[in-house]
């Protein structure tokens, strides 16, 4: 029953969206009715999605999708998250969000009616394309042909709080770029020359980018404690394809800032909007078609892959084609001086695009090679570290001086203050590196990261007002974001360069010396949880006989899917993480891996700061 409601709502909503696509020459909607139809369609698709959630929560196994991906004794939160923990449901979520973004735009935007209608038309055509994809190849409302009382269960590795909200966050980001795409496309068709759309694009690009950041960070945090490999970024193809729209989105946000200097490059902005959304679709295509194997590739299916490839080709192809035909003219020439804000932003944009192309090349190169020569190659961390990092370095260098630059001239404001502080800081960093273990990458990362932080802090101090108001925070917002990046760079550098890995064989009661700490295996217990069995080891971490904390790595056994997952035990400290995973057992002797990851917390702090400043930027005009 609930499946029937969901499916009818889906079809009806697609129908309403199709009626919106009738060309103006045949029938011209009044703006009132147009908006009404659009909102009705949004309302219906939300009903459709909610009914799928209801089917999951009530464990309605007459729905084939629920039967395949749920189990009646899962905790409630994983029943809900199970809705998007599979291909069909996640695409329905994607579709729902396309519509919600359009809905939000129709409420907030103060654009002219014609422009608004054009944006929403493009948004609904995207909606219709994806709705057809769902209806014809991945319907979540199929009825189960046999009567069953129990489902097959959700992949245990996905049963995790961070992963419950990771897909919606990520999709909010990916799909947000659909609105950016629509705005860019609509701007090509507009006749008037106002630049209001750039301000709107900026707002939506920042919203999407912020969500995407949060989504990627959640996924990465999950990989850190759930996969038990001791790291948080593996240059896995699936991570790479989420990074590509993120980088282009970042370039887009930065090139939109140029409107503040009254220098607009509409052509470039539209180009980036198209690129950004098409990379989001490419990500979906590569993951869903099963071309790339990972935890994300649910049951793959050639027809689905073909369909998404077609969607990707059509949307990107049309986007670029219209862009070619109706390319906007650049009104005023850019003021490119040797070193001013505009040229810094443009160089940064170029670097980001090159970085994105490098990642793209590394990600799809194996596919090219396999098609051409039928051999399998894999491109991993070493390639990306060796190519992407050097590209980003000059970008970081520019970031450290960016706040000082001016729009109009080559002059640098408060030149002397900066130089003095830079020299002092560099000296301190140099001394630090000299007296600890020297490592080139460690040194470069530390000095760039701290430069960026320093430059931003000085800029904030120079603008300090005694009255801290929201407006003040808004005016220093970009510096806050840059501080976040600086902190993150330091965290990334230290956690990757100075990571230490140990292997121990240990039995209950034994102690290990780890530098200044003592690690003792206290006990190992087997406990029954609601839908799994867990084997938990308890380590006590002591420093000079003072107990600091317990570290609890575990292995979980899920009887429904007969799978074992490892759960790393992590002791968080501001300065270092002690990270333990349980290995095999032999005669009561346990093999454990201990990683000491310095400054990992800085990465998450940096990300949180970036997200915070993204949220502030939304309210900024």
């Amino acid at each position, binding site marked *: 029953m609930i499946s029937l409601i969901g499916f009818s709502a889906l079809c009806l909503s697609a129908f309403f969206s199709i009626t919106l696509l009738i060309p103006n020459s045949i029938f011209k909607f009044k703006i009132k009715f147009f908006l009404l139809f659009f909102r009705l369609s949004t309302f219906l698709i939300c009903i459709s999605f909610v009914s799928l959630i209801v089917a999951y929560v009530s464990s309605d196994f007459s729905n084939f999708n629920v039967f395949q991906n749920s189990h009646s004794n899962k905790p409630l939160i994983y029943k809900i998250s199970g809705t998007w923990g599979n291909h069909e449901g996640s695409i329905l979520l994607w579709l729902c969000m396309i519509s919600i973004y359009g809905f939000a735009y129709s409420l907030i935007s103060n654009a002219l009616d014609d422009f608004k209608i054009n944006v929403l038309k493009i948004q609904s055509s995207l909606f219709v394309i994806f709705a057809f994809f769902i209806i014809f190849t991945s319907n979540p409302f199929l009825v189960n042909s046999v009567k069953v009382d129990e489902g097959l269960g959700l992949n245990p590795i996905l049963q995790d709080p961070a992963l419950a909200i990771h897909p919606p966050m990520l999709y909010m980001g990916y799909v947000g770029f659909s609105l950016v795409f629509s705005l860019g496309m609509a701007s090509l068709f507009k006749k008037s020359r106002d630049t209001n759309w750039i301000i709107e694009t900026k707002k939506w690009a920042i919203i999407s980018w912020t969500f995407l950041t949060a989504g990627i960070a959640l996924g990465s945090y999950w990989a850190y404690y759930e996969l038990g490999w001791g790291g948080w970024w593996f240059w896995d193809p699936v991570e790479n394809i989420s990074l590509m729209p993120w980088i282009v989105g970042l370039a887009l946000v930065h090139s939109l800032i140029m409107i503040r200097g009254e220098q607009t490059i509409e052509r470039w902005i539209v*180009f980036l909007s198209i*690129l950004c959304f*098409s990379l989001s679709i490419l990500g979906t*295509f590569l993951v869903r*078609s*099963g*071309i*790339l*194997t990972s935890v994300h590739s649910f049951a793959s299916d*050639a027809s689905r*892959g*073909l369909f998404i*490839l077609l969607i*990707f*080709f059509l949307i*990107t*192809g049309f986007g*670029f*084609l219209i862009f*070619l035909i109706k*390319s906007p003219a650049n009104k005023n020439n850019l003021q490119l001086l040797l070193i001013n804000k505009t040229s810094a932003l443009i160089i940064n944009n170029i670097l980001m695009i090159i970085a994105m192309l490098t990642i793209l090349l590394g990600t*799809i190169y194996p*596919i*090219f090679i*396999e*098609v051409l020569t*039928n*051999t*399998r190659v894999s491109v991993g961390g070493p390639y990306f570290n060796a190519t992407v990092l050097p590209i980003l370095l000059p970008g970081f260098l520019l970031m450290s001086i960016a706040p000082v630059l001016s729009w109009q001239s080559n002059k640098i404001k408060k030149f002397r203050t900066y130089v003095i502080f830079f020299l002092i800081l560099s000296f301190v960093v140099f001394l630090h590196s000299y007296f600890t273990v020297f490592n080139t990458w460690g040194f470069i990362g530390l000095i760039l990261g701290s430069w960026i932080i320093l430059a931003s802090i000085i800029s904030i101090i120079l603008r300090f007002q005694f009255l801290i108001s929201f407006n003040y925070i808004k005016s220093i917002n970009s510096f806050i974001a840059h501080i976040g990046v600086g902190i993150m760079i330091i965290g990334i550098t230290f956690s990757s360069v100075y990571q230490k890995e140990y292997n121990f064989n240990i039995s209950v009661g034994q102690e290990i010396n780890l530098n200044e700490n003592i690690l003792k295996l206290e006990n190992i217990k087997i406990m029954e949880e609601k839908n799994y069995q867990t084997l938990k080891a308890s380590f006590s971490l002591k420093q000079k006989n003072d107990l600091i904390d317990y570290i609890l790595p575990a292995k979980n056994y899920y009887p429904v899917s007969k799978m074992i997952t490892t759960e790393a035990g992590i002791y968080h400290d501001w300065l270092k993480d002690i990270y333990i995973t349980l290995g*095999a057992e032999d005669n009561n002797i346990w093999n454990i891996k201990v990683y000491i990851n310095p400054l990992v917390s800085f990465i998450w702090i940096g990300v949180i700061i970036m997200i915070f400043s993204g949220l502030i930027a939304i309210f900024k005009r």
Partner: protein
Amino acid sequence: MNKVLKFLPLILLITVCIFFLLFIIFEKNPSNPPSALLNKEIPEFSTKSLYNKYVLLSSENIRRNVNLPVNNNAYTNENNIQNKYTIINFFASWCTPCRAEHNLFFEIKNNYQNVFLLGIAHKDNPKDSIKYLNEEGNPYSFVGLDQDGKIALEFGVFGLPETFIINNNGKIIFKHIGPLTKEIIDDEISILF
């Protein structure tokens, strides 16, 4: 030049899409990668016996089907028969799926007389391997060591366990990644002998 640059995104898009299309049409399955070594001669290698470090086995022995040593006995005559197939199985004591397929090798050993079962202990401590084989039983005609993983590299081993079958001309005629199952032996391997 400017014109070419304008069309560049479209050209790139079309090329990328064509490759993806070809990839999907030929249904490349990532979990079952093609082997460059299939139908080729086995790579050169030489390995020491797990039980006796003075007993060596090299690819030459397998290729020519001569002087195949059996565990700690250097040479036995019974092994020098023509028409002998060799199964090479990469395993390790730390590899759980290896335990799952282990019993099947006893079956192969009992059912097919003209098979030489070569087990290669991959990146494993010899003590652990011996212990593992004592616990699970030793179906292998010969157990070779590959402590630094060089032999596995030569064979392009993807992940443990991995099994190769070599015919009496020294050519690799079958390869399987992951644990063997009864179905694979019945459907794919038995027809080879």
